[in-house]
């Protein structure tokens, strides 16, 4: 299986909102679409999924045009919602039926996902209630009310309006995954989630990756994207400004992030040594806190030279040379592009 996005462009009148986007997913994994607000990520996703007419370009899934007939697609839209007044179970069964999952199979999948996403209490409100003794009247005397003799009134099925935003988002993710899709498109999946639920969503994404699914993800949370994605495109003002394999991109930047930590007991003398050397060697210190330094070197050679000069003068605890993070690459690229503009 493979996904090929070829030369997608979109214009509204004279305004270009997506300019010749192309990429491929030859195998399972996560492809990230990154960009600032209004860069064209959601437009790209909508065009890939065939919701928006294309000015140019095509999208293929297994060499056939991508559509709901040729590919089982799961989609968590950026603008997401549920029917506010309909029962959640009815809605999920409906969404499942639209994807061809019906009857008992749909119910089994809903139960499984509900357990995984911890929303069973909303979908099965009466299941966790303690079983109450049934009332059997054996005499003509009126039934005694109170205590255990009163049967608890069954709770009505929950509707979307009764759920918090985070829980609604879980139901929406259930709807996206209910057909066990081959291609999963997640547009800002973590936005608005608390840390606990963010971790829950991450676990789900990990599971889908492990199952060999194709994921396209758009997010502003670089740490999340960096954790999952293998390839990416960064968009800015509708144009592709960086594209490729994440590791290759990072390698191309080289190991330039230096994390240095000197023994705090040796301060302030050790601190003065670090400051003097950075000035001499023209190495900018990005941040400093209680003997910990974040520095930007030009490469491994400069880092080695700094280390050799530091060792005789200051007790070093940590000397860690890293590639730039995705966040740094994104800020540098987008910032640079905006300056050019």
């Amino acid at each position: 299986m493979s996904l090929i996005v070829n030369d997608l462009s979109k214009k509204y009148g004279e305004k270009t909102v997506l300019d010749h986007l192309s990429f491929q997913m030859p195998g399972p994994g996560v492809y990230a679409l990154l960009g600032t607000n209004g860069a064209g990520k959601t437009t790209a996703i909508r065009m890939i999924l065939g919701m928006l007419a294309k000015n140019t370009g095509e999208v293929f899934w297994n060499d056939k045009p991508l559509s709901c007939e040729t590919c089982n697609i799961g989609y968590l839209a950026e603008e997401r919602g549920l029917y506010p007044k309909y029962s959640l179970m009815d809605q999920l069964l409906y969404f499942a039926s639209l994807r061809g999952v019906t009857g008992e199979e749909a119910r089994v999948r809903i139960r499984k996902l509900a357990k995984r996403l911890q929303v069973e209490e909303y979908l099965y409100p009466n299941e966790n209630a303690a079983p109450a003794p049934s009332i059997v009247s054996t005499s003509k005397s009126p039934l005694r009310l109170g205590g255990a003799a009163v049967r608890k009134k069954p709770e009505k099925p929950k509707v979307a309006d009764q759920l918090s935003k985070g829980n609604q988002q879980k139901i929406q993710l259930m709807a996206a995954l209910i057909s066990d899709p081959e291609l999963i498109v997640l547009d800002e999946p973590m936005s608005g989630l608390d840390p606990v639920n963010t971790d829950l969503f991450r676990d789900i994404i990990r599971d889908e990756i492990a199952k060999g699914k194709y994921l396209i993800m758009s997010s502003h949370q670089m740490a999340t994207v960096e954790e999952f994605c293998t390839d990416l495109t960064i968009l800015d003002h509708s144009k592709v400004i960086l594209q490729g394999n994440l590791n290759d991109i990072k390698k191309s930047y080289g190991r330039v992030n230096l994390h240095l930590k000197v023994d705090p007991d040796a301060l302030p003398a050790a601190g003065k040594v670090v400051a003097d050397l950075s000035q001499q060697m023209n190495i900018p210190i990005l941040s400093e806190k209680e003997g910990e330094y974040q520095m930007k070197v030009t490469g491994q050679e400069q880092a080695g030279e700094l280390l050799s000069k530091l060792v005789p003068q200051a007790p070093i605890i940590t000397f860690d040379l890293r590639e730039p993070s995705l966040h740094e690459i994104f800020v540098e690229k987008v910032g640079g592009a905006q300056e050019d503009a």
Partner: protein
Amino acid sequence: MLNIRKEDLQGTGKVYRFTITQMLKAKANIISLIVLFVITSLSLPLRTLLQDFGGKTPFALGSITVVNNTRLAVTEDLLSSVIEGYSVLDRDAFTLASSPDQVDYASLDVLDAVVLLEEKEPSETSGREGSSYVAAIRALPDNTISDFSMSLLKSAMNDLLLQARIQGVSLSEEAYDILSAGVEIEDSSLESYLDDDENSSHFLLQMVYSVIIMMVSTYAISYIIQTIVEEKSSKLVEFLVVSIRPLGLILGKILAALTFVATMFLVMVLGLFCSTVVSGLIGISKMGMANVIALAGISSVSSAGAAAAPASPLVILAFVVSILLGLITFSILAGLSAAGCSSMEDSQSAMGISMLLIMGGYMISIMISAGTGNDAVHTVLSLVPVLSVYCAPVNFLLGRIGFGVLCIAWILQFLVIAFLAVVASRVYEGLLVYRGSHLSFGQILKMAGFGRKTAKNQKGGDLA
């Protein structure tokens, strides 16, 4: 031109089933159906019981004493035969007296009225040469006679005097009719002469049919708009259209809304049926259901129908096809307008174009029907799309147009539907993911590539 493929309609049935199930589950809709049923069920008995009787029992007559103060032979048998002609009047309520002295004044507390049959001598002022007869009905204070019963009583007394006079001169009824027949001088054109007799009933038929079309269409478009805008405002559309094509999604919703309106209509019909049954059961009527119905005003419908040709299968087909074509037209328009909305607040403005056509068709069909007897005008109205929905079946029923013209009217209306379907197929996709202020129908047409293109409107339902 109309590029609708099979896969465009896949999933329509699932959308239909879900939507109609949710509509029928919604409390507000259940309450509406129950209220509609109750109102229609009670309409006939309540109206019969309460309306236009001034708080009196509708057919109550109490006790009536008829005093014959004339030379005519008004006998018990004659009175009985006349009263029997009025099934609603109770013969036992009438007593006959030959002079005012014979009136049972002791029973005045139960007496409702005294009818004095009198003979007037010719006078110079009246200008008449012979005697004249008077039936003076003297209703007593606090009588229980309703207005309706009073009118029947007047009519019965007139008949009583007539029959007594016929018997008095040994004339046959036929001979009397010939003698008493009046002479009128008419001054009108041949055309209006031919039309006048039927005009009022034809107008009534057109009005009743137009009201039904207007009601059903208005309900249908309001439900269609509500269900589509609800989905758009809940931001679900984007999720749904990866599973189903926009056309299938909207079509499922339109069909569900039409089914719900049909259900409402059936509930109303069922209610009216129960209403007539209930009216009979509570024994309001001694004169039979026909009079009850007449009292409730249903007679207008039946007389309008009776004025027309019998309901042949072809006539039924004419009405059914025309109504369906009209509903489809208004529904697609409503669907298009609703798809151009982003929030529930926009739904009122979305009704604009559909309501304009529905009300325009209604007004024009009524006014023209009342104002002209010209067949050419009726033919033109029957052919104009949208107006034909209102006028064509009625004109066909009344023989103003032939089946050929009716078919042409259907074809023209179908072409309008095809045009709207083309517009819909071009723009639904773009409209469904559109978010912004409500789009006018003109803007939607431009999006579809009709009318003058602007820089902002590109092929394929793009929206700036």
